[in-house]
């Protein structure tokens, strides 16, 4: 998952990357028996899984596997639409359903992909972190023998001895980690054994950084390093490296991805969402899943440990422009949460769209609103009853024409089997600002300026005893088709108007109230998701902005290109060879390199 420098041919070519050497697969000794082979196979799989190619393929798979989630209806988002899709495509639908394509993000194959991806990520990031810590302890790597093979290369001759020039360069390398070494000139150097821990020249700012600068490991020795710079026949080299923070950013980015996944997983386990419709003027208390119309629990939620709270919906206000476009929705509530629940302590609050009420852990959202028309029914036996039922706003109607039904399952004065002949239903629309054209009522404005209802009144058997569940917004039309439920009347009523049926039942449209739909959300891990996301972004930016780059200087007294000299390093002029390598594939090292090439020149600070 992480950017693997060792795969870069430039690094591998030049053998300057300590990681590169260790990353080369070691051949297994033959004949280790079954267990050995199993181990080898396991190691092979692991190596494959953590290879960048597999990580890339897994990324593509993840992208590809997510697509059905956007293109096909999903049970969790819109179950009605999904069911409709299944009806529309009777052959393909069930197959897709079996494959989990209507529940992509909860399907096992989707989980398999992202788990493999995260396994790959861990398998890459952890070793990478360890190796990075190792790199921090070590000085910048020794100078490659052939600087001319590097992507950036420069050669110049300047005044001053090698030591003077080296001092100038080191002074100019502020902010770099610097290591100065001396090496035998090529040819002479061959065959001289390494003196481990020998190169002991402290970098310009090495001490300030508190780094140990001893070359602790012969891994470094791309060229032969000598213990003492005072030896004759030697060249001075300066290795410098900058941009370690890039690696930090890279690791932070990948680790915070992991953190994000864990935060999401915790949220899915212990969080829950519940939605409920509450009429203005009534109270709602969240004590158990049963108090909600719709409750979506996390996997570990059994509903016994919900934090109780109560909301008293006092008022709902919607403001509109003259053109009927909504400008504000606000619900005035009183609430009590946590320790206050069940006491007389209430807090005032206003719920708005985009402005939820945040209680102890739980959040309460205003998601929608609608109207409940009130009807008063005077029965033939003289008894009077009031009914109020929530009507659902028609989708895509900005003027809030709402549909619904009032069902009277137990008409007074009727007993026995007669009940199923005398049940009443008021079915129709509620228009907050009614306008009637040709007998058809529609709403012309979303606010309740002049409410009216257009209703059909049925009498007979509502079909409630069959055990089949019914929508509260409509009647079972098959009862009508069977003739069990018979339409008595169709009429438009404005507020206060009434209609009388043939048996003397009088139905009056008495008024309305508003309802709001509220949603409770509980996700204790979401703050950790946010923290992870912020870290992820910071790590990403650091790793993209900062360049990890290296520069090497090799200083030789002038006039000794052949390497066979008798000089003592005190010549007046020094040949400086400079090589530069950016370890990331970011363009733009070139400009910085040209300023680096000016460092050996005298008179520059």
């Amino acid at each position, binding site marked *: 998952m992480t950017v693997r420098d060792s795969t870069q041919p430039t690094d591998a070519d030049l053998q300057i990357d300590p990681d590169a050497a260790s990353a080369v697969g070691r051949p297994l000794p033959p004949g280790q028996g079954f267990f050995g082979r199993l181990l080898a196979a396991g190691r092979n799989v692991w190596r494959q899984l953590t290879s960048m190619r597999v990580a890339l393929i897994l990324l593509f798979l993840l992208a590809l596997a997510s697509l059905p989630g956007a293109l096909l209806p999903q049970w969790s988002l819109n179950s009605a639409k999904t069911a409709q899709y299944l009806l529309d495509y009777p052959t393909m639908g069930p197959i897709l359903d079996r494959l989990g394509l209507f529940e992509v993000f909860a399907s096992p194959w989707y989980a398999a992909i992202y788990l493999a991806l995260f396994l790959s990520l861990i398998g890459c990031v952890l070793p990478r972190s360890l190796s990075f810590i190792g790199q921090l302890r070590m000085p910048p790597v020794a100078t490659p023998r052939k600087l001319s093979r590097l992507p950036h290369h420069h050669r110049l001759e300047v005044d001053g001895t090698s030591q003077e020039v080296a001092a100038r360069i080191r002074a100019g390398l502020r902010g770099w980690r610097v290591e100065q070494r001396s090496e035998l000139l090529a040819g002479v150097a061959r065959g001289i054994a390494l003196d481990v821990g020998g190169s002991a020249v402290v970098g310009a700012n090495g001490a300030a950084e508190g780094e140990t600068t001893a070359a602790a490991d012969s891994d470094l020795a791309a060229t032969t390093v000598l213990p003492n710079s005072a030896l004759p026949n030697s060249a001075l080299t300066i290795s410098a490296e900058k941009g370690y923070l890039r690696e930090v950013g890279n690791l932070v980015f990948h680790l915070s991805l992991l953190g994000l996944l864990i935060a999401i997983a915790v949220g899915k386990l212990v969080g829950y969402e519940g939605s409920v419709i509450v009429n203005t003027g009534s109270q709602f208390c969240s004590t158990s899943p049963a108090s909600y119309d719709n409750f979506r629990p996390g996997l570990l939620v059994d509903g016994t440990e919900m934090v109780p709270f109560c909301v008293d919906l006092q008022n709902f206000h919607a403001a509109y422009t003259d053109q009927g476009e909504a400008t504000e929705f606000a619900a005035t509530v009183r609430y009590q949460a946590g320790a206050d629940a069940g006491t007389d302590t209430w807090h005032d609050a206003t719920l708005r769209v985009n402005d939820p009420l945040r209680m102890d852990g739980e959040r309460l959202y205003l998601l929608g609103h609608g109207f409940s028309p009130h009807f008063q029914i005077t029965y033939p036996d003289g008894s009077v009853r009031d009914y109020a039922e929530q009507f659902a706003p028609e989708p895509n109607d900005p003027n809030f024409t709402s549909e619904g039904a009032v069902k009277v399952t137990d008409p007074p004065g009727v007993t026995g089997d007669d009940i199923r002949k005398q049940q009443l239903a008021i079915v129709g629309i509620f228009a907050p600002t009614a306008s009637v054209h040709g007998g058809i009522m529609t709403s012309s404005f979303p606010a309740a300026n002049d409410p009216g209802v257009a209703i059909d009144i049925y009498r007979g058997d509502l079909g409630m005893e069959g055990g089949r569940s019914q929508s509260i917004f409509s009647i079972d039309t098959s009862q009508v088709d069977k003739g069990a439920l018979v339409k008595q009347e169709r009429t438009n009523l404005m507020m206060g108007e009434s209609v009388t049926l043939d048996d003397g039942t009088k139905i009056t449209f008495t008024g309305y109230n508003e309802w709001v739909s509220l949603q409770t959300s509980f*996700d204790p891990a979401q703050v950790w998701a946010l923290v992870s996301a912020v870290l992820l972004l910071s790590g990403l930016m650091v790793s993209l902005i900062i360049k990890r780059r290296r520069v090497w200087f090799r200083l030789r007294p002038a006039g000794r290109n052949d390497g066979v000299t008798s000089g003592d390093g005190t010549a007046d002029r020094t040949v400086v060879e400079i090589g530069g390598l950016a370890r990331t594939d970011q363009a733009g090292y070139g400009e910085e390199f040209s300023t680096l090439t000016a460092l050996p020149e005298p008179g520059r600070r």
Partner: protein
Amino acid sequence: MNETMAQISDLAFEAALAGYVVALVCYAIELASRRGGDRGDAQAAGVASRAAQRGGTSTLTRTGGGSSGVTGNVAGGATGAIGLIAPLPTASWGVRFGRAAVVVTVVAVIANVVSVVTRGLAVGRLPLGNMYEFTSVICAAITICWLIVFARTGARTMGAFVMLPVVILAFVAGTVLYVPAAPVVPALNSYWKWIHVTTVALSSSVLMVSGAASVLYLLRGRYERRLAALRPSGGGGGNDIAGVRGFDAARPEVGSPAAEQAGAARTDRSLLGRLPSLATLDRIAYRTAIVAFPVYTFAVIAGALWAEVAWGRYWGWDPKETCAFVTWVIYAAYLHARSTAGWRGRRAAWISVVGFASIMFNLFFVNMVVSGLHSYAGLN
């Protein structure tokens, strides 16, 4: 609602659209008329200097400014130098069209920005409330990003390929998507909208420039491979082996000036040869991508924060969210591919193109066809 401002905005948008069309035509004329121009000069110079580096006898093949005929074959010494590239006359009027295109682009984008600003003043909110406004902002952002890229790389021949999607987008915005200035529903009235939608628009625009560069990279790469196959004497990029060619000249059936000239003329007629170099296109694609990717990441995070405030959860796999995630994963793959051996270059460019397609899909298809929580595009 300010009617005057709304009218100014509409007029400015029409002006911008007209300007984009004119700019596109000018870029296209330059591209079609180009016979080398500055790129050719640079290449000729490169050939000469490389030849010099190799210590071969120098061959000068072509100079700019309308020199005609094979001029170089008298230059060298004993080995004999041959003109490599048939020098065709440089159509300086084409270059003038190119310069005019840049000027028109600047004027058009100013008109576009004026349109966006006056629209915002007319409705008293951020002008990103519907698809029309969003697309208008995207057009302006793409063009500004393109101008910045042009200023830094001088890759003017890319202009036509950037302006083409801009013209299409602006046209669709002005016709299909257009809605009169109006306030937005309360659901959209949040300061998160400022943050989320602005960053989405900006990063998408920059990623589109990146995608255009990658498309051109692939086209140019194919062209160069064809060119390499066409040239018998092993010139990989076509013209950097001047020294070798000097020796080839000894074998008349391979290196005869006439054959060279014919081959070069045939390939030079392709528009693709006039695109910026592969290295330039690759750099443009990568640099724009790494600028846009963190901004896009931020935009997605801001969207999640807004979703937490508006819908009660920070992530719910709404179609738009899913597509944003897919796009993010594709660009993450692009950045990883860039640092994986064997995936750089062509494969990485393909990934970038897929990401580009994913952005377009997310901006338009998801808003217009798929219904979800993001479908308040002003179209339903």
